[in-house]
């Protein structure tokens, strides 16, 4: 990395944006970075057939959208532990005994074994965990094949990160809006903390808006860097976001700060909402949130009166027992304050009509209603399953021109916990084949003990991966995946936004690494349905997707970005994509599903004196994306060990000190971590790092490269008190726990015997 050690501030002060000249021997490629899920438009510099540098785009609208994970990518993806050839398990599951096979041998055997599972148990016995966000070149092809086979059991991390937000937003106004940061006057961050090296374009947009005078309101128990920059910081109790929004609504409605004309013309259920909001006087909200009532009222007034305002998507309300209510309250604030589909507010962009979108590619219409209703989780937690989303077919067709809108892929998912129960033999029917692509399920969902049991109970597990993750170690086949440097990419923001961007192929993949497109094409062939993926190459597939533009892929990729003609207040023409055509403050669909049609607030269960602290997890560290990047020396130098944060007072009470190894324990499990004292943390709150494992540690069952020592999913409960009712997603923002000094066998030894699978050393 890059960065030469000595740094002269004058160099930066004199830095100016200029288009870079082409260097001798260097060619450039327009790329979209997939080091994380935010997809920055960048430039790859290529020498001797390989990408040697990733830098920010020459296009000023994408300027500076790059972070440390992007610039280290040429080295990170050249890591000698990268999986380069298909591997077949030859010993017991998780034994670490593998043999190299060809792609053809692998696909043939996988096809035979998957057909047997389907014949024995039905097509619903096949589950897949991934997302287009993880793999970039899936484009809904996995769902397309599953729909043709007859399996509805697709799960994804987007179930608790943006996908579920999209699904729940639809209950109120039929689409998932995106903020117009360029024109906004006020931004509200609910626990989200975009930084220079995490969610970089969002950080760039927020700072840019602030520079132009926009107000920033931050709700966060921690004094985050965003909180330090905020005009108002509400240091609320962890997990009390929904209660806080009830307080805002109480002020906004009582003081008549809402958009009366919009409410009268375009909403239903305002009087019922008002009654529910009246259950939350500020004194009660102050007690629930721990914040000063005057400050709550002031924040509400700033949001409602500053001008068009934005409440950007936040992962925080995606991961709480009040998730559905929290997300719904955000939608209600947007709507009644007049921020929907106006410049500076939140835009309901719809699909880009020039591009064949992923929801079309997925072909949900070919899956029978009978199979759709078998989707795991449908019965008890239907919000983002087919059962909860099918009522949008007619309204979505009316407004957006097609029946299925799988926004952020979150609108037709199975529930992860129910799927793992079925895989473990504890569900309503067996699931016996499990594929995961660019995804590390053991560390990405709640309740690792259940997930491990589920995986050990499978007849067939297939992983498509770049590195030997803890989850891949339990597979029957590990197939080598390419990277974003090594193939083109058409990026349509998964239906969230109408802007489409394009990425060139910058170098050949190493070894036998293949794209997700090639993976699914192979699976379609192995299942005797090659016509389901009829395109020969990824480029052919992209030609098909962009044909309506009148350009070929080769032509359009040079344009970098393709905008839809902007439109505002589109609901004036076709209404909203809800059954009533209005903004449904009381949701008719939630009511039909048997749930409260209004948002509500569930308080924490009674405290267990054995677990006096509260923890939250899910936070990204700058050098890592989710469970990835731990193999990159430069990133590990920044975060050598998993660290929990406590403030000094709480640490003193618990008898633990800065730099010591501790265990964090709760009723489900325990993890080991080092302690860092942070005065920005409130009393009795523990920040647990997400997704930790160490690629250098011993692989296989009983070890899983440190995942069993550090993996936070061992603490994430999915019992009823810790699940959102409507969605069935876990509450990971406020889990009771305790922190105790680690006295035995600490620190955890990193030097283990060399894994059998370790390639190239």
């Amino acid at each position: 990395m890059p960065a030469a050690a000595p740094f002269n501030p004058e160099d930066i002060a004199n830095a100016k944006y200029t288009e870079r000249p082409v260097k001798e021997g260097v060619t450039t490629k327009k790329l979209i970075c997939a080091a994380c899920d935010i997809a920055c438009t960048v430039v790859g510099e290529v020498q001797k057939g390989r990408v040697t540098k990733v830098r920010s785009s020459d296009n000023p609208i994408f300027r500076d959208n790059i972070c440390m994970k992007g610039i280290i990518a040429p080295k990170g993806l050249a890591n000698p532990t990268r999986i380069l050839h298909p591997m077949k398990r030859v010993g017991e599951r998780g034994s670490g005994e593998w043999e190299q096979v060809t792609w053809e041998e692998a696909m043939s055997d996988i096809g035979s074994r998957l057909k047997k599972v389907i014949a024995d148990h039905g097509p619903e016995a096949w589950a897949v965990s991934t997302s287009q966000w993880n793999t970039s070149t899936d484009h809904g092809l996995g769902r397309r094949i599953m729909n043709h086979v007859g399996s509805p059991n697709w799960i994804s991390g987007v179930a608790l990160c943006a996908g579920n937000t999209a699904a729940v937003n639809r209950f109120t106004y039929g689409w998932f809006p995106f903020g117009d940061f360029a024109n906004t006057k006020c931004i509200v961050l609910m626990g989200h903390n975009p930084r220079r090296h995490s969610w970089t374009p969002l950080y760039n947009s927020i700072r840019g808006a602030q520079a132009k005078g926009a107000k920033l309101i931050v709700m966060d128990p921690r004094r985050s860097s965003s909180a330090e920059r905020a005009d108002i910081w509400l240091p609320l109790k962890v997990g009390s976001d929904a209660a806080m929004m009830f307080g805002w609504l109480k002020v906004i409605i009582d003081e008549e700060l809402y958009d009366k004309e919009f409410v009268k013309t375009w909403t239903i259920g305002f009087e019922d909402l008002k009654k529910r909001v009246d259950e939350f006087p500020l004194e009660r909200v102050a007690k629930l949130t721990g914040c000063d009532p005057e400050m709550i009222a002031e924040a509400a007034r700033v949001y409602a009166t500053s001008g068009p305002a934005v409440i950007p998507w936040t992962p925080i309300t995606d991961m709480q027992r009040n998730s559905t209510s929290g997300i719904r309250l955000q939608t209600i604030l947007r709507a009644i304050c007049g921020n929907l589909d106006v410049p500076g507010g939140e835009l309901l962009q719809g699909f880009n009509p020039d591009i064949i979108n992923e929801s079309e590619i997925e072909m949900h219409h070919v899956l029978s209603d009978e199979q759709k209703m078998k989707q795991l989780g449908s019965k008890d937690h239907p919000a983002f399953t087919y059962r909860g989303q099918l009522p949008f077919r007619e309204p979505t067709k009316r407004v957006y021109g097609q029946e299925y809108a799988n926004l952020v892929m979150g609108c037709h998912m199975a529930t992860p916990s129910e799927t793992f129960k079925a895989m473990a033999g504890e569900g309503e029917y067996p699931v016996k084949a499990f594929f995961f692509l660019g995804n590390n399920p053991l560390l990405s969902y709640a309740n690792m003990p259940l997930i491990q049991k589920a995986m050990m109970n499978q007849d067939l597990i297939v992983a498509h991966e770049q590195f030997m993750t803890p989850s891949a170690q339990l597979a029957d086949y590990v197939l080598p995946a390419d990277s974003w440097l090594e193939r083109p990419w058409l990026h349509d923001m998964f239906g969230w936004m109408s802007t489409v961007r394009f990425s060139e192929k910058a170098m050949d993949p190493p070894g036998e690494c293949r794209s997700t497109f090639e993976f699914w094409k192979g699976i379609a062939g192995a299942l005797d349905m090659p016509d389901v993926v009829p395109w020969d190459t990824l480029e052919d597939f992209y030609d098909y997707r962009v044909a309506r533009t009148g350009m070929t892929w080769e032509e359009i990729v040079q344009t970098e970005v393709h905008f839809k003609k902007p439109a505002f207040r589109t609901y004036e023409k076709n209404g909203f994509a809800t059954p009533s055509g209005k903004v449904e403050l009381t949701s008719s669909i939630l009511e039909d599903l048997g749930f409260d049609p209004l948002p509500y607030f569930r308080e924490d269960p009674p405290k267990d004196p054995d677990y006096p602290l509260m923890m939250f997890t899910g936070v990204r560290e700058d050098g890592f994306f989710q469970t990835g990047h731990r193999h990159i020396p430069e990133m590990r130098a920044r975060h050598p060990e998993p660290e929990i944060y406590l403030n000094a007072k709480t640490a003193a009470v618990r008898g633990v000190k800065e730099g010591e190894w501790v265990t964090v324990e709760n009723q489900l499990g325990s993890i080991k971590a080092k302690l860092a004292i942070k005065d920005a943390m409130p009393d009795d709150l523990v920040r647990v790092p997400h997704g930790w494992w160490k690629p250098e540690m011993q692989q296989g069952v009983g070890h899983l490269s440190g995942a069993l020592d550090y993996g936070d999913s061992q603490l994430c409960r999915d019992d009823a008190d810790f699940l959102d009712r409507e969605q069935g997603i876990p509450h990971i923002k406020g889990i009771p726990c305790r922190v105790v000094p680690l006295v035995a066998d600490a620190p955890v030894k990193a030097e283990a015997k060399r894994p059998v699978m370790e390639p190239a050393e």
Partner: protein
Amino acid sequence: MSLTDKEIRKQERSARLMIWMAARSSRNKTFIDRMCRKLIVRATTVDPEKDFMRDPLIDNDEGFDPDELDRYQRGETA
């Protein structure tokens, strides 16, 4: 929100113009495209001392040597 309809329509026109300019700027081929790019560069340039995106790690990045990456991939270097 208390904006008048007239004010909202003005903002909508302005927002449409911004997208049009962004599209032309991204294409960057014709005279008008390049002019749009220059205008966007000017409109989005922040004073260096206030530039919140400046970062030594990024600004000093020199990339990698291709032969060094080859050796690294073969496990010959750390």
